[in-house]
Each structure stands twice: as structure tokens, then as C-alpha cells.
């Protein structure tokens, strides 16, 4: 994995996120911290692998707010600091970000916001460039892995020179794209940390805050000039032509594709800019003056578009401006080569054929849907929870949270009623419970998510005397984003040992009197404890602890431990299909000719839970 340490001049294949990591290394980054979140996670993971070699600090934080604040400490000590998170993570980190813009930074400070147009793996497709505008900090928007590397590098210089945090905005089509990257020189950093004590700057309240706001405003024009002069702004001109396209970031790729496919290379001018805040105003103004009409192509919200409209108005330019506000491009979902080609064809009044037949099929393709992996402990947990909830004959609400266990919304469990953001399962459950919306309110949250933002809501539930039942599904990792460690695992991002923070101790310290730990593979015990928790007159926490099956099988393989295997005794199987309909394990295969189920030995990870589910005792262990 050390290719991100390759020699200058080498042309290598890098994932967009690895390119960002390399850019940080080239800039001489000293301090890296973040919270996992798709599509950002590989940046920190790549740096963690080379941290010891480079002598830099790399670690996961408990959440994005804490990550950002920790990096502020490093930056104020003069260290170059990188903070990584997904777009919704910036919501969590927004509080310190706003003030950080006021006080400014010392060591270069770069915040990576990995946005998710199309909500591939997120609860919203919010456009985080608004955060750059809100905080009044520059945002750089790379088009490809090469630019991702180069812009990360330059972001550190801009940040340090102007003492302002800089945001770099990525999307899955950059973060999760491999592309060729020519490597640059690595800056060997030998910075000695030193904090310039200055309470009139760093204690940001009242008159100090107002003064710092003024300084922030004064920086804006200088930064605008810097952004205007960056080579990342690209102009493609056809002298006789007065029709133009302005684009930014990944959308530039689609614009070039469309121009090629529509064969209009000599009929249109293109301005590709590298930032929507600040807008490279000189570039945009001269482009506006040159063109009679302009189409603006950008991913997600019409942020550039609105600014260009304002600019045109301010300078009395009557260029026609089109984009998302008039429906040329969609406001919802990510762009792709076809949507952009359709918009440009319409803008240019030329035909473009996306074969109409393509939108309909004469066959149906069954969805794979969301499924837990074979052996996933969450499956066992939800099986027990559903069984208990059906038995108690009381009304109930189950609030969910962000993680693999959100799949509990899908078949066969269909058990989650809500999921909005990290930690909200517990606070929303309190809201439902205090409103008396149902007899029982259950909150379901994972270990990493509980540590991330579940502790204050749990204290609040105790304080508000809300008798919620909190199920902490502890698979001892941050599974969905790729098995990153967290404080409950006792390991750091680089694999070093650290103090293991126990979730049960935290729950007790929050004031919860009912705290029990069960193994979800043990269905009987789990169901007993769930019933006790529901009957308990007060807030209760049940920790369902069992290592993620994927992580466990990987560890077992590495250590040469054989997994248990199970099989269906064919004579005993009556084909009731309960193991599929109520449990949904992908290793269970139904043979329609024999009308019996068998277990695929390649998929089975040996959890053995199905043994207790089969009403005919047809499933047995068959050795390894």
C-alpha cells in the first residue's frame, strides 16, 4: 500500500481519496484526524498505513466535531492539519468550524468534505459548499484524482498564508475513482510545535469575536484574487463563438464528454472554475462579457449559478444564464454524462439521442435489496427483538440509527420506524416516549454511533426520566464504513493499542440503572434480557455484543482458525422456509425440486443461530 509514497515524477494509479492523502503528504502534513464516513474513509486509512514511516500523527476521533477541534489544537501549535469526514459529518463539526474561520489558523488547516450526490450511502445529498459560504472560507473542487492531489497540496499553502481553514469538496465520482496521478515532491516537515499565546485572538467572544469577524471579511478579497489566479481555472475558447458553459469540479468531465459526443467543440466556449467560494470573479466576469448566453453545470445546488446571476446583475451584463434554476439540469440526484449531454443539447438547440427504448424494459430484474451478511449478529438481534415485541402485545416504536443495522428497515425484519442522523435513535426515542406515542419505545444504535453522538441523548433520557429501552448493537468495530477501530475497540487507526473504553461503564455513568450485556447469538438469553429491559420501570440499556461476522471471518482466516460449519439434515427439513422468511440468511438455499433447504458452505460463517430457529431441529453442526 506504500504506492502513495512513490517517487516524484512517477505516474501511478490512485483512488481519488488516496490522491488527497498523497497531496497532504506532499504538503508535509503533520496531523491527521477524522471520523469514518463514506465516501471519505480511505483518505485517513491510507495515511494511517504510512503514519509511522512518515512520523506523522494519524488517528480516528470519536466524532467529526471532536476531530475538527482536535485538529484546531494541532494547527494552533503550528502543525499542518488535515481533517476528513463525509458531508453530514460537517453538520456535526459546523459549530467549531464557524468560530475557527474567525480566529483563523496557524499551521495549514484543510477540511475534506466528501459529499454524496445521489445519497448513495447517506441520509441527505446536502451541498456542503454552503458551509464554505457560511463560514466564509475557500472551497476547492477537484475534477479528477490528479487535481485532488494538487489541490490538497495547494490548499495547505493557501490556508497557511491567509491563516484561514480551507475546505476541499469531493464526491463519490472523485473519492472512489481510480485515475492516473503524476506524483510530486514530498515536503519533509520538521516543524516544532509552538503555540503563540494570544488570548485576544484565541478566546473568541464579544468584542474579540467582532474584531475577528472584521479580519475575516478583510481576508476575502485577497483570497478571491488567489483563487482567480490558480491554474486550476481552465478556459477553452473559440474566438468567433458567443455561447459558453461554466462548470466546476467533477461536472467538467461530463461537459467535455458531451461536447465531444455532440461534436460541438468549435461551437462553444468553456470556463471550468476550481472554486464556488470565493467565485473566481475576474475569470467569470470576462467570460460573461464574452458570451451572449451561458449554461452553468455543477453537481447538486445552483451555487455558482446564483452567484453568476448576481454578478451579471451587478455589472449590468445582459448575458442569458441557464442552469438548474430553470430546469435545464436536475436539482435532485447526481449528474452523469447523459443528463449533461441532454442539457447541453437543449441549450444549443441540437438533437441528442439517448435511445428512448432505454427507459423501458420488457423484463423485470429482481432487486437484491439490503441484506445482512451471513452470520451477522444484527440479524440475530432483530430476530429476537421482533419475537419479543410480538409477544408482549403492547404498542411499540423502534427508532433506528446510522450503520449496518439500518438494514433492519428491510425485509425480513421491517422493524425500524425512523433513521435521521447519528445518535438520533436515542433522542427521538425519548421524544416518542415522553409524548406517550406508544407503550414501549426502543432505540437501536451501534457501538461506534453510540460513542459518536449517543452519550448526551442517553444522559438526557435519564435526566428527563424517559423510560426508553436502548439496544446498543456492539459488533466491536465501525463496520459499514470498512471496519475502522473506535474507542471501544482499544486500538487506534495505526493499529497501536489504546485504553479500551467500555460502553457498559459509560451507560452506567450516564445514570442508567438497567445495563446488561448479552451475546445476540444466544437467542434465549437475548430474548429474556430484552423482556426484562422492557418491563424495567426506567431507562434501560442492553448491549448486544458480538464481533462483526466479516471481521471475525477475516481474523479467523489470518490466524488459521477454522470456522464452524452447519448443514440441514435433509430428512428432517420440512421446507417450512422459516429460516429464510423470518431470518433471511443468504447462506440458506431453497431447492424447489426437493422442497428443502440446504446451507451453502461457502457463504455460511458458522454462527449457528439457525440451529435454534429451525422448529424441526433439522440443522446440525458438521465439523469445520
Amino acid at each position, binding site marked *: 500500500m506504500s504506492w502513495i509514497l512513490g517517487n516524484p515524477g512517477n505516474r501511478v494509479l490512485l483512488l481519488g481519496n488516496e490522491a488527497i492523502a498523497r497531496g497532504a503528504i506532499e504538503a508535509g502534513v503533520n496531523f491527521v484526524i477524522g471520523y469514518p464516513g463514506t465516501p471519505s474513509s480511505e483518505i485517513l486509512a491510507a495515511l494511517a498505513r504510512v503514519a509511522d514511516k512518515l512520523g506523522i500523527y494519524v488517528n480516528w476521533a470519536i466524532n467529526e466535531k471532536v476531530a475538527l477541534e482536535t485538529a484546531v489544537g494541532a494547527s494552533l501549535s503550528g502543525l499542518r492539519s488535515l481533517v476528513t469526514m463525509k458531508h453530514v459529518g460537517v453538520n456535526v463539526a459546523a459549530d467549531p468550524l464557524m468560530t475557527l474561520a474567525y480566529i483563523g489558523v496557524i499551521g495549514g488547516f484543510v477540511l475534506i468534505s466528501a459529499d454524496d450526490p445521489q445519497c448513495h450511502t447517506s441520509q441527505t445529498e446536502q451541498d456542503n459548499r454552503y458551509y464554505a459560504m457560511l463560514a466564509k472560507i475557500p472551497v476547492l473542487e477537484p475534477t479528477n484524482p490528479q487535481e485532488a492531489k494538487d489541490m490538497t497540496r495547494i490548499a495547505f499553502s493557501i490556508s497557511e498564508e491567509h491563516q484561514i481553514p480551507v475546505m476541499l469538496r469531493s464526491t463519490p465520482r472523485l473519492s472512489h475513482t481510480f485515475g492516473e496521478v503524476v506524483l510530486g515532491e514530498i515536503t519533509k516537515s520538521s516543524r516544532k510545535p509552538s503555540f503563540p499565546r494570544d488570548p485576544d485572538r484565541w478566546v473568541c467572544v464579544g468584542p474579540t469575536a467582532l474584531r475577528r469577524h472584521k479580519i475575516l471579511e478583510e481576508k476575502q478579497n485577497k483570497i478571491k484574487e488567489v483563487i482567480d489566479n490558480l491554474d486550476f481555472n481552465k478556459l477553452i475558447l473559440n474566438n468567433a463563438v458567443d455561447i459558453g458553459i461554466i462548470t466546476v469540479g467533477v461536472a467538467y468531465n461530463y461537459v467535455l464528454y458531451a461536447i465531444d459526443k455532440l461534436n460541438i467543440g468549435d461551437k462553444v466556449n468553456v470556463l471550468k472554475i476550481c472554486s464556488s467560494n470565493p467565485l473566481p470573479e475576474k475569470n467569470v466576469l470576462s467570460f460573461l462579457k464574452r458570451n451572449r448566453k451561458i449554461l452553468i453545470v455543477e453537481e447538486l445546488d445552483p451555487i455558482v449559478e446564483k452567484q453568476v446571476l448576481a454578478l451579471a446583475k451587478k455589472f449590468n451584463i445582459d448575458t442569458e444564464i441557464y442552469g438548474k434554476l430553470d430546469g435545464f439540469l436536475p436539482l435532485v440526484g447526481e449528474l452523469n454524462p447523459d443528463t449533461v449531454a441532454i442539457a447541453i443539447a437543449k441549450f444549443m438547440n441540437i438533437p441528442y439521442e439517448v435511445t428512448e427504448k432505454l427507459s423501458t424494459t420488457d*423484463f423485470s430484474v429482481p432487486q437484491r435489496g439490503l441484506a445482512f451478511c451471513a452470520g451477522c449478529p444484527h440479524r440475530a438481534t432483530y430476530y429476537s427483538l421482533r419475537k419479543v415485541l410480538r409477544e408482549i402485545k403492547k404498542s411499540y416504536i423502534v427508532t433506528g440509527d446510522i450503520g449496518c443495522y439500518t438494514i433492519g428497515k428491510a425485509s425480513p425484519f421491517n422493524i425500524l420506524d425512523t433513521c435521521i442522523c447519528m445518535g438520533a435513535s436515542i433522542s427521538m426515542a425519548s421524544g416518542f416516549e415522553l409524548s406517550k406515542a406508544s407503550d414501549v419505545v426502543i432505540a437501536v444504535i451501534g457501538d461506534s454511533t453510540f460513542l459518536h453522538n449517543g452519550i448526551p441523548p442517553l444522559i438526557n433520557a435519564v435526566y428527563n426520566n424517559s423510560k426508553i429501552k436502548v439496544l446498543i448493537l456492539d459488533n466491536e468495530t465501525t463496520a459499514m464504513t470498512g471496519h475502522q477501530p473506535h474507542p471501544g475497540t482499544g486500538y487506534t487507526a495505526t493499529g497501536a493499542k489504546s485504553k479500551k473504553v467500555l460502553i457498559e461503564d459509560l451507560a452506567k455513568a450516564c445514570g442508567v440503572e438497567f445495563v446488561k450485556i448479552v451475546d445476540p447469538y444466544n437467542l434465549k438469553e437475548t430474548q429474556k434480557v430484552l423482556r426484562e429491559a422492557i418491563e424495567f420501570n426506567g431507562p434501560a440499556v442492553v448491549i448486544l455484543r458480538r464481533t462483526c461476522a466479516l471481521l471475525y471471518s477475516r481474523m479467523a482466516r489470518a490466524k488459521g482458525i477454522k470456522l464452524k460449519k452447519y448443514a440441514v439434515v435433509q430428512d428432517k427439513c420440512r421446507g417450512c422456509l422459516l429460516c429464510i422468511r423470518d431470518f433471511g440468511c443468504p447462506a440458506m438455499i431453497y431447492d424447489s425440486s426437493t422442497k428443502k433447504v440446504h446451507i451453502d458452505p461457502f457463504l455460511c460463517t458458522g454462527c449457528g443461530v439457525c440451529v435454534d430457529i429451525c422448529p424441526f431441529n433439522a440443522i446440525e453442526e458438521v465439523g469445520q
Partner: protein
Amino acid sequence: MINEFNLVIASVGGQGGLTLSRIIAEAALSNGYSVRTGETLGMSQRFGSVLSFVRFGEDVRGPLIPFAKADVLIGLELLEALRAWKFIGPKTLVLVAKISIPPVFSSLSHIPKWSSYKYPSIDDILMNLRKRAEKAIDIDALPILRKLNNVRGLNVFMLGIFAASPRNPIPKSLYEDAIRKVIKRNIELNIKTFRIGYDIGQRLEFT
């Protein structure tokens, strides 16, 4: 030098589709091409649909492939190959492993409530692929892989088939270098599996 080559890989999570896209991308880079890969994943770590794109050529830009514009579709699973139909056009060569991994609830599809999970017949899938593509070839990969004791090597086996097709613009040796670079375990077995795929591919009629 080719201007632009668009390859789609359709697979089920855990089959090695992403690794395959990475291998091809590395080989294309070694061959002097500009390269982009992209992916569309479900939220499931395992058993979800995985669509990967590999684009290479003199000057390729973004990772996404326009509808109906795939030069080649490699399917590691039949239903997933069909799911990628939007990328198949009249000039697409489809190479699909004759492997079915039914979604979990396909087993229940005889019950009306679950009927939407019904796994289509293999003949139907192949017929629909053939209807759209210039040519669709199904390869009975499992018996060969079982004999090699390398069922996990499906991805490199199918790469071998593709490498032998006249559409492939990259020298075979570069794929072998890329396999050595990307795959961590059982390298020699996977090289062997790739070569067997290549030998079988040489006997196929691609046009």
C-alpha cells in the same frame, strides 16, 4: 492507441468485481492509457449489486459510462449482467459467467407476497442480453474453477476470457503484472486461473 474503451463489470458483493476493475485499470495504465474507474455499490457489504466501470484510452475524463456505450460488459453473475442492461448497446460484447446467485428472498418467490424476487430463468437472461448486445457469450466457469480449487478466482478467469477476445487492446502480460500487483493471496494460482481463462477464450467465437 484507442481513443476510449468503456468496460462495465457487473457482480455481486464479495465476488471480486472491484478487484477486477482495479487489475484492468493497472494494466491499462501500464499500457500508457489514461484511466478512470467508478463504481455503484449497494449499502450491503456482501450480496449486494456491484457495478464497476473501467474507462481507458488516450484521454478519458470521468468515471461514468453513458447509457448503451459499453464496449464490453463482463458479468460475474447472470442477474447482475442483466441489471446492467442500460449500458449494453448494439456494439457491446457481453461476457457472462453462467453463475446464478439468487437474492435471499428468491427462495420465497413461489409465495405471492414475495413474487417480485423471482429469479429469471437462465435462458431468459441470456435471451435478453443477446437481444441488446452485438454478441453475448456465456461461460460455464464454475466446473473449471472447482477443478482448479479456485472458486474465488472467477474474476481473473473472466479477465482471461476477455484478454483473449479481439476487443481487448492490452497485452496479456500486462494483465499478469497487474494481477501480481493487486492480488495479495495465492498469486500463482490466480495467474494460472487467468491463463486457463485465456486459453478457453482463444477457442471462443467472439464475433
